[in-house]
């Protein structure tokens, strides 16, 4: 098992490197550059800065942030009026060699020292920015994931057990109704219900707390922040519960009809024992897949949560940096997501092996 794990992780490194490179180059295909709005004078009742001055300042910004350098070692000569109007030379790809002075080289050399670069906008190290933002997102996501999982397990198993049929008739439709709320409507609804003086004023409406001068001890601070997390987590749980429960339930119901479950029943085990000892293991397989697949989707879901509840997190950071074309931050975030994703797939594979020992022999 350990050897397999080691091999799997070792293999992941070159794959991750290829992926990171692809992500870096893809991100630069995004039209627009950081600081383009310098070229665009504020429209108003007077001019501030002539066009030429703006162009010069923009040029300075490009040079300061290395955005004027070619993206990669090798580049394709772009088409132009001249080589398409008369002849057909464009049909032969023309490569140009840029040498080590390119954005990719600089970025990878920094990455090898453990740095994801600095934000164009605020000159802050991207590592620190992501670290700060990811902490909040991480807590919200992981707590809500665990809660959703547990709830889905409880609901799923109770629906296949004994009196489950009657329960199912209530729970399944309720979940589907829940699922048909668009996510942002769900969040707004939660806000209007539980953070509204006209309805129920239970939780704070936004943010992660205020500056409280005087007592800033770590634990107290965390405890004070707790109420701020309740609504976002609740929203995420409610949003993901229908899908997970359903997958789990169908998968469990499918296994319950298998031969060996009948055998187990015939052995005289109680239905509860049958489920927990035999059916659950097999039913978990697709659920593991879904969970490991859900992580990036959760980050997207986190965007809505973070915008509505005004929580600083990785999703909001991604949106603002995409809109500002703050490339180091965009690439940094995507790389972190890819890394987490990669790890989750490794974990998923291990889980497969644990749940279904027959896969273990397939040490790829």
């Amino acid at each position, binding site marked *: 098992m350990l050897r397999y794990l080691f091999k799997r992780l070792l293999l992941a490194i070159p794959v991750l490197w290829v992926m990171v490179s692809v992500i870096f180059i893809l991100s630069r295909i995004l*039209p*627009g550059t950081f*600081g*383009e709005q*310098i*070229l*665009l*004078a504020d*429209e*108003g*009742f*007077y*001019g*501030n*800065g*002539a*066009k030429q*001055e*703006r162009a*010069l*300042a923009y040029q*300075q*910004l490009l040079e*300061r942030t290395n955005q004027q350098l070619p993206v990669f070692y090798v580049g394709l000569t772009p088409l132009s009026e001249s080589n398409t109007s008369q002849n057909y030379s464009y049909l032969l790809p023309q490569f140009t060699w840029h040498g080590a002075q390119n954005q990719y080289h600089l970025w990878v050399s920094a990455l090898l020292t453990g740095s994801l670069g600095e934000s164009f*906008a*605020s*000159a*802050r190290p991207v590592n620190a*920015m992501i670290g*700060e*933002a990811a902490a909040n997102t991480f807590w919200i996501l992981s707590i809500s994931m665990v809660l959703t999982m547990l709830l889905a397990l409880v609901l799923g198993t109770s629906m296949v057990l004994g009196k489950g049929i009657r329960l199912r008739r209530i729970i399944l439709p309720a979940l589907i109704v829940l699922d048909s709320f668009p996510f942002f409507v769900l969040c*707004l609804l939660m*806000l*209007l219900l539980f*953070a*509204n*003086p*006209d309805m129920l*004023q*239970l*939780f*704070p*409406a*936004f*943010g*992660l*707390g*205020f*500056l409280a001068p005087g007592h800033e001890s770590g634990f107290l601070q965390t405890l004070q922040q*707790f*109420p701020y997390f*309740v609504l976002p987590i609740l929203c995420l749980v409610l949003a993901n519960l229908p899908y997970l429960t359903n997958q789990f339930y169908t998968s469990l119901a499918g296994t319950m009809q298998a031969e060996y479950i009948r055998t187990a029943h015939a052995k005289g085990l109680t239905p509860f024992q049958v489920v927990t000892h035999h059916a659950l293991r097999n039913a978990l397989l697709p659920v593991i897949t879904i969970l490991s697949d859900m992580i990036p989707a959760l980050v997207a879901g986190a965007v809505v949560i973070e*915008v*509505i509840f*005004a929580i*600083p*997190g990785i999703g*909001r950071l991604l949106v*603002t940096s995409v*809109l500002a074309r703050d490339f180091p931050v965009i690439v940094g975030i995507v790389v972190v997501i890819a890394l987490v994703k990669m790890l989750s797939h490794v974990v998923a594979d291990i889980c497969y092996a644990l749940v279904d020992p027959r896969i273990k022999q397939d040490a790829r």
Partner: protein
Amino acid sequence: MRKIYPFLYCFFLFFSFCSQPQRQPDEVRVRLTSDPQTLNPANYSDPSGLRVINLLFNSLLGVDLADNELKPVLAESMPLIEQKGATTHITYELREAAKWTNGSAITSDDIAFTLKVLKAPLVQNEQIKPQVAFIRDLILDEENNRKFTFVCEGFTPEMELLSGDFFILPAYLFDPENLLKSIPVAAFSDSLSKLENNKNIKAFAARFNTAAFNNSGQQLQGSAGYVLEKWAPGQYLTLKQKDDWWGKSINVPHLTANPKRITLQVIPENTPALLALKNRQLDVLEDIPAREFDQLKTNKALLKDYTLFTPASYGSVYVGLNSRLPKFSDKETRQAIAHLLDVANYIKITQQQYATPTVGIIPPNLKEYYNTDLKPYAFNLVKAKALLTKAGWQQRQSGWFRNVNGTVQQLTIKLSYKASNTVLEATALIFQESAAKLTIPVEVEAQEGNLFNTNCREHNFEMMLRTLNGNPFAFNFEPLLHTSHAEKGGTNYTGFGNAESDALLQQINKAGTKAEKARLLKELQAVMYSEATFIPLYYLKERLAIHKRFGNTKVSGLKPYYDVSAFLLQK
């Protein structure tokens, strides 16, 4: 029964969070829609950043929102402006009382340092750099180290405003090693390539281009009444009043730092911001959506604690037609389109009547300049039809057709606007339906912000909806309307103008008296009205709520619509 207990526990846990954070009465809490990108006074790029820096740093001149007038802040009085041939000399004297945080006086050396930082190569100053490019040199008064003269190129009416608009930086704090001291200001106005290899500038840039100068309360200490106490990124910024601020010792009503603490909360969405207002967790909320504002008006509990304001603002929405296109090249066609704009309904549907229709680019509340002889274009199908016929369009079964250079062309309109702006979207859709009544097909296209701006700059549009922010200080419309700005990349997107209108714009800039200026501006409005290339639809009324415990709020139509540093606790 056993199963009930866990539920009960959960229930109590749930309700133990009911507490609302206690508020300090002398703290003002306002909302920001986004986190500032940077607080660097030499390179800020967004309105959120500007709002915070305004409370940390001072400029030479500033707008007093109490009467919307430009007043001296760090300067003793308004500057002396002399035109000397091709240059303009603007002379200032600094206030004697003005001090940095460490107690040292602000001198002309700080002004020189600021100009050098804003003009230097390699340094993070690109956002502000173009605005000070017109200042070519600085002459220091030899006797008085608080007196200095900007030497500027040419003359434009906004020079007074712009020369006092940038934040003055502390040389002692930003450049303790005096790296920039030896280089004269004029050297930064020539070709910068020589300076790019200057050792001192490289050293300064290495120091200045760091995160500390973008977000650290230790470094970002200016001459204004507040210091940055804490910035929790994405959450809030807290500013603390300075203990012995120089502005208090001189009794100038527009130099204020009254609240002990100012917190700027980052809340991107409107709904939680409104709920925070209802929870009394925010003291001020601006840009309230029109329908919500109407509902607040009937909320008695809220009105007990908050006052609602609707000052007439300088923000407007305009329609731009690309007059370079053959189909829009004649006046009559453009006027016909103007008659298809149902402004009354735009105001009713998108603004709930919180807007004033306008005939031209001058806001209606500036009575002395607004041309009352004109009537705003009204929705009128008959007139539109007549104008189209006059322009040579023929109505057929499927639409309007005209012979352009030998080919028959149909009148179709592609209307673009910035995506995710619901006001503009509703406006565009209503226009589409109005035009359909005349069988003119309109394609509505929402474009992503960057794409939309690029398309406007490259003249790659037919008809567009944009917002415009004005002010009552300078009426230099050359960048927007002069033909010299009409080439690709310029700010005259619509291609408005001819030799006559160009001359008129220049005359406005040279006007000596107010009466003459008023006459010329009214003429400009008449010209723009008949050209109908650049059609302002209405000027907005700002909608904001402020807590009643504060007085002296200086509510104004100018951004940011109130002066938070002036808020006074009322007994």
